[in-house]
Every structure is written in C-alpha cells, then in structure tokens.
C-alpha cells in the first residue's frame, strides 16, 4: 500500500502550491473535523496516549534539571518525597510521614518500606543524603543547587574552594537509618515540606550515577523508582514512558504507556494535535493568536499556575509619582481580555491567588485597580517631580510579550508618555537588566513562576541584594519584614508579615518598584478521551498517574 509515496505525491504537491499561491481564500473550514485518520481506531481498553513534550530536556538528572519538560519527565519516572495536592498541601508519596521539631529547624521524613528502584534495590534515606550532597557539590556545578540552600551548611559546601569533604560532612542531611531522613535547616522554614516536592529534591541511584557518569540518564542506563520507566529517549525526537508494574502503587495506575514526541514549535504541535497525532501537551506553549479559537473547543483546558507577569521600573529613572501614574494607567482587564486571553487574574500585588494566605497577603493596592484609573493617573503624572515623558520599555522577543507591550504603550500615551518598545533576544536582555539595570532601561517585563507555594518565594526577589531585583529598589523596612518572615514558623503571623511587605511595595504609600500585569494561568490541549483525568498542578507539574483513557482518542 505504501509503495512509492514519492511519485504519488509529486503531482499533489504542485497542485497544493498552485492553490496556496492562488490565495487560500474561500476555504475557511474552521469547524472542519480533523478526525477520520486512516489509522485503526484504538479501543478504549488500550491505555496508551501520545503526548507532545514542549522541549528536548536539557537533562533528566534531577540534580541538573531546570526546565519544565525535564521536570515533567522526572516527576513521572521518579518518586518524590511528597507531592502537592490541588490545594498545594504536601501529601505523602515516598515519605509516608514527616515531623517538624518544635523550633522548626529539624525536619524528619519517614520513608515507606516498599520504595524500590527498578533494579530491585530498596530506596533508602541514604539515597537522599547522597543525592542532595551530590547536587550541592561544586564538581557537579548544578544550576539549581540553591534550591537546597535552606539546609544547614548547604551553601557553604556549594561555595567551597578548599576543605570540601569536611564541608560536605557538615551539610545538614543525614540518613539516621534506612527509612529515616533527618534534615537540619538554617532557620524554621514552614514551606520546606512543600518545597521538597520540587524535582531538585528527588533521589538518584548512586551506583548507577557512579557507573555511567554523565550518561546515566540514557534509557539503557537509567535506574528509576517512579510509576513510569523511561523506555526510549531519542534526542530531539521522542521520549517514551511505560508503566512500571513493580512500582509500590502500580495497582492504582491505569495508563500503560506514554508515547511522547518532542515538538518545540507551538504551531507544529497544535497541528499535530488537530491531526490527531498527539492527545495532549505537557502544558502551555500554544501560539497566543490561536487561543481565542481553541478556547471554544472541548479539548481546551486551563489550570491555575502560580506566577506573576510584571513590569519592573528602574526606580532611578522613573520617580514615585510617575510609577504610580503608569501603574494606574494600565487597564489590566483589557490586556487580559484582548491580548493575553487565557482568563488570567489581573495582577494586584506580587503574590498570586492560590498561594496559602493569599486573602491576608493581597495588598488591595490603590495603584493596581483591575481596569485602571486614567483620571487619577493623569493627576499623579502632573504632580511628578521630574516627569519622564520618553520611556524605554524593554521586553524579550518571545511570543506574546510584544502584543502586551503595544497595548500598554497605547495606555501610557493617554497620560502623555511616549513609549519606545525595545525587544531583545533573551541572553542579551538579561545583560541589560543586570542587576543593576542598564541606564537605558526605564521599564522591563519579566515573569516569576513559583518554586514552592509560599509567598516568600516571590517576595524575597525584591530585597536589596537579590539577584532578581532589577529595579534598583532597596528598602530596609522591606528587607526587615522578609527576614522576620523567614524566622516566623507560625502561618498566621507570617502571612501578616507578608501582607506588610506587600504593603511596602504596593500599599497606599507603596514604592511601586514593579507593577503586576497578571497572574498566570496554564493552558493546555487535551483530547476528550483523557481530559477528565489528565492533570497539571499549579507549579506546572504534569501528573500522569491518574490518567485513564475513556472512549476513543481521535
């Protein structure tokens, strides 16, 4: 049947081109059913799905991974200590329970007895001690080693130049016995349990890592301990997972197999989805222009996503009145409805809704009303000490940012500000931002996606010596509040401190070093056969263990 496809198609191709050139008008079949593929229909009994991974994972080593796709693969082939439920509360996973000492600085995890590696070895507390110290070791040079900096002695060991072995011994992670892992923290960190759901805290199999070195994550070498196994990884092309029947909780996993195609380009993966070649994405990456159309489809899915998209001010270039005026002039709801289009929440402060304590923490800022306030903006602009009417707005040239910048440019023109939009390629962009930012930067765009569900993770960016504070904003009161919050294990009291910190930034007398635009949502396409059971958590973590294929996948 598939005898020579080449000859057969030559003529067809020429015709297509002629069609395409002659103008594709009059052929607008948006409601056209892409189904009816020639392939045999899969019976529902076959628990197999095909997903599109959004990128080639730079590394499947939990210690080295930094991006979403790597994290999503790792999360499904490995067994983390805890997972976050829909309310972002940590739930037992490999750790069956944990205990936090009175003063909050010692955390003791009790591991399950039945955790095991795919080669039959039991998973022990020693695996975690080894893995965390490995991630911190200067020789591994892990980008995300700082995720573990809350552990006593971790930062010192990671930064060591001499005496490294001694410093490694002093890192506060100890396997007391096979199933007891004790962690000493630098301060009480009530978020630590939730933070340990992050992929940086996942254990690796020591013997495998030592035997294969940097090749240990290749499918023929890797030893894992999660619900799925890495069956194949063809770089830049595909990653296939199969259910591991020996997993401690395998009875509750229905899905047998995940075929994964690596498709980076948003349009390409959407086409593959619409042709029925893939059943779901691992979250996001859709072309912004397609969102309104996709939203009307049954396959569209939207998740909460802890993060804030903001415009930062260089406070040395733009004075306080003008920062307030510019913030007031932005009609966030309009930006969301017409540009971002994924039902994001208008940005009120730094902390996104969904974070524990949000109701207390949310500053209810007078400077960030959802629909803006042009009148007040204009009057503040008139009061500005040294109004700057020519503003440089910087953004990186990824999809979507320019459209928002243009909308905001238009809004600012209403209060007499002439905005020049400057797009930069990412690496160059970061050079411009510093910190400290280049003098040419008046306003810049960035986003922050939370690592763990506690407001501190976003607020601490704005301390004076933070590497993520590109605004030149430096306020002692703010730094004091953040530091105090770090030392406050009690939730209610800590949330109150966060609220005060938000107030320093966005309150009545707030400094407005940044103005939030919106809090993210995560959009995804999922075939109706799996849509009910496919799940992506608010930290963009795809969980395949509950997926059940029902009915027919197109």
């Amino acid at each position, binding site marked *: 049947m598939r005898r020579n496809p080449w000859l057969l198609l030559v003529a067809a191709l020429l015709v297509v081109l002629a069609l395409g050139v002659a103008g594709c008008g009059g052929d607008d079949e948006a409601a056209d059913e892409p189904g009816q593929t020639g392939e045999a229909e899969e019976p529902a009994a076959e628990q197999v799905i095909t997903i599109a991974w959004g990128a080639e994972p730079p590394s499947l080593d939990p210690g080295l991974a930094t991006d979403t796709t790597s994290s999503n693969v790792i999360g499904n082939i490995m067994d983390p200590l805890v997972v976050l439920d829909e309310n972002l509360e940590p739930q037992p996973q490999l750790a069956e329970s944990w205990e936090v000492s009175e003063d909050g600085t010692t955390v003791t995890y009790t591991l399950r007895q039945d955790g095991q590696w795919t080669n039959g070895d039991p998973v022990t507390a020693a695996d975690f001690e080894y893995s965390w110290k490995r991630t911190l070791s200067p020789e591994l*040079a892990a980008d995300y080693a700082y995720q573990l900096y809350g552990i006593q002695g971790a930062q010192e060991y990671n930064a060591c130049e001499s005496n490294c072995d001694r410093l490694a011994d002093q890192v506060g992670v100890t396997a007391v016995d096979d199933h007891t892992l004790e962690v000493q923290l630098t301060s009480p960190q009530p978020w630590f349990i939730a933070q340990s759901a992050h992929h940086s805290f996942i254990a690796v199999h020591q013997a495998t890592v030592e035997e294969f070195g*940097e090749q*240990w994550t290749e499918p023929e070498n890797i030893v894992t301990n999660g619900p799925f196994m890495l069956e194949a990884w063809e770089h830049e092309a595909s990653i296939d997972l199969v259910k591991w029947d020996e997993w401690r909780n395998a009875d509750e996993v229905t899905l047998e197999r995940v075929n994964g195609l690596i*498709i980076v380009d948003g349009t390409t993966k959407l086409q593959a989805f*619409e*042709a029925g*070649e893939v059943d779901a994405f691992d979250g996001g990456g859709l072309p912004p222009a397609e969102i309104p159309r996709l939203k009307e489809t049954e396959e569209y899915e939207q998740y909460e996503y802890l993060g804030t998209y903001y415009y930062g001010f260089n406070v040395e270039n733009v004075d306080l009145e003008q920062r307030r005026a510019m913030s007031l002039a932005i009609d966030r709801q309009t930006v969301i409805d017409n540009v971002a289009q994924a039902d994001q929440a208008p940005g009120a402060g730094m902390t996104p809704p969904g974070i524990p304590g949000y109701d207390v923490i949310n500053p209810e800022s007078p400077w960030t009303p959802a629909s803006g306030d042009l009148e007040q903006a204009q009057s503040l602009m008139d009061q500005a000490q040294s109004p700057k009417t020519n503003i440089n707005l910087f953004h990186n040239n990824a999809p979507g940012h320019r459209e928002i910048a243009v909308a905001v440019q238009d809004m600012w023109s209403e209060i007499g500000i002439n905005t020049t939009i400057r797009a930069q390629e990412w690496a160059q962009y970061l050079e411009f931002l510093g910190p400290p930012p280049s003098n040419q930067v008046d306003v810049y765009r960035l986003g922050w996606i939370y690592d763990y569900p506690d407001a501190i993770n976003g607020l601490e960016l704005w301390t004076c010596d933070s590497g993520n504070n590109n605004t030149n904003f430096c306020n002692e009161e703010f730094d004091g509040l953040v530091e105090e919050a770090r030392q406050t294990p009690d939730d209610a009291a800590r949330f109150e401190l966060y609220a005060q910190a938000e107030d320093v930034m966005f309150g009545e007398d707030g400094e407005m070093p940044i103005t939030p635009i919106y809090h993210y949502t995560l959009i995804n396409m999922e075939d109706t056969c799996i849509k009910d059971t496919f799940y992506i958590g608010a930290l963009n973590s795809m969980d395949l263990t509950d997926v059940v294929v029902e009915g027919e996948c197109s």
Partner: protein
Amino acid sequence: MATYVIRRIIWTIPVILLVILLIFSLMKQIGGNPFRQTERAVPPAIQANLEEKFNLGKPWYAQYAYYVRDVATFNLGPSLVLRNRTVNEIVKAHFPHSLKLAILAIGWGLVIGLPAGIASALRPNSVFDYAAMLFSNIGFALPNFLVATVLIYYVALQWDLVPTNGWPSAFWDFNDKRLILPSFALGLFFMAFVARLVRGTMLETMQQDYVRTAKAKGLRWRRVVLRHVLRNSLIPVVTAVGPLIGLVITGTFVIETIFSIPGIGRYFVDAVAARDYSVVMGITVLAAIVVIVANLIVDILYGFLDPRTREART
C-alpha cells in the same frame, strides 16, 4: 590531481583556525551567560562552579587554546546547556538528519528543476516555458516557511496524506512519508534555482559557434544537445549547487523547526541563543568543513566536465 587535492586539504587548516578565532571573538562580543536560561538569577557561587567546570573562568587566550585543542583532537567537549551530552554526540546524532534533508532537497532540485530547465530551453517561449518559469519565479519568491505551512495545511491536515511533522530515526530509511513535505518545502528554492540557471546557460550555449558547427556537420539534434550543449551548460550548475550544501547546517533551521526534525540546524540556532559556546564552535567548524569539502568535490567534478581546468592544474 592528487597533489592538488592534498594541497587543498592542507589549506583547510588555517581556514579552520581562522573560523574558530572569528566565532570565538564574536561569541565573546555578544555577551550573555550560558548558565542563565531562565529568569532565575544564578547565585555567584554557582556561577563560579559552572565557570570552573567549563573552563570559562580562564583568560581569553587560554579559552581559545582549549577550543583549538578540542577541534584538533575531534573531542569538542560537553555542551554547557544540555548537561548530559557532549558536542561530539550531538553532531553525530543530528548532523545526518540535516544532511539527509539537504540532499533530498537538492535532489528535488535536480529531479524536477533540471528537466524543467532543459525543456524550457529547448522550447523557449512556449507555453511550457512560460509555465515553468512562472513556477520558478514563485519558487524563488516564496519563503520556505510559508510553503511549509501551506503544505502542512493541505496535504497533512486537510487531505490527511502524511503526518504533520516528524522524521524517521534511521538515516537509511528513505521509505517514509514524513520525508516528503520537509524536503519539498526546502527543495522548492533549489528547483526554481536550478531550472532558471539551466535554462539560461543552455540558451547561451546553444548560440555558441561549436553548437552551430555540430549542427552544420549534420549531427542529430539529440546528440548535439546531449554531448555539446548539456555538458557545457552543467558547469555553472555544478558550481552553484556545491556550496549550497553549506546550507545543510544553517539553512535548514526553519524547516527543521516547523517539521520538528531532529537536525543540526535547530541546535545551531538554539545554541547561539543559549550561548552554548562549545556547541556553537563544534557546529561552525563542522559547517566550515562541509563547505570546504563540497567545494573540493565541485573542483574535482570540474575536471571531468571541463578538460581545460584539468590541464591547468597539472
């Protein structure tokens, strides 16, 4: 001939050294931090660890020396961004896909463009000639991403004849529908290019005295075309197609992205964006070698097509 080839090969060494120096200084000029791919700042201690691991803390001449050593030993070191992979591995795994894509694209150019050009030249100003030249103008003018998008829309989505994207994993697998669209989209330019070139040079050759002489001698027209016109017209075609192979590496980027093909072009662009110095260096050197080899082959082919160049060299 042999001495000529050897001399050419030796000459590649300074060329490659120069390429390394050029790319090295360009990459240093544009700045950027290969260890910061996300919005998250890299703490100084971690930055220091990474620079130490990848020899980036050293002075520039030491870094240059490292690159030269790496290239000389064909061991291009680890990628700075894809942490579990080496440049050698990346090139080995992905270059063949790009090479195959480019060969197929050039194949389209020769299989369709060459006959179309010849036919046009033999019947100038005929309906066929006009049609072919119109088609070739279009092929020139349309950017390949547009062609690719239109093809995917009709052939893959509407008619459902081929998958929308993907690529066979085995190099020698040529019996796969997924090869068709990308190679055609990339090859359209070559088709147009070759057709025009051949038509032009053939028309010119047919005006030559030796063609008229051959005709006057009473040779059959078919024989005149094959022996005299075509052979002489092909020289410029060979000259032009050879260096186009260089596009294997840089020119396939868009098509590889649209069709999700695991080729080297994508790596090259991504590596520059990510400041993955070792990957950029490795692929650039590879590209230089490919172009040099392609030119060498062209020069050798010249010898067969045109005896004058053969004599001039010995």
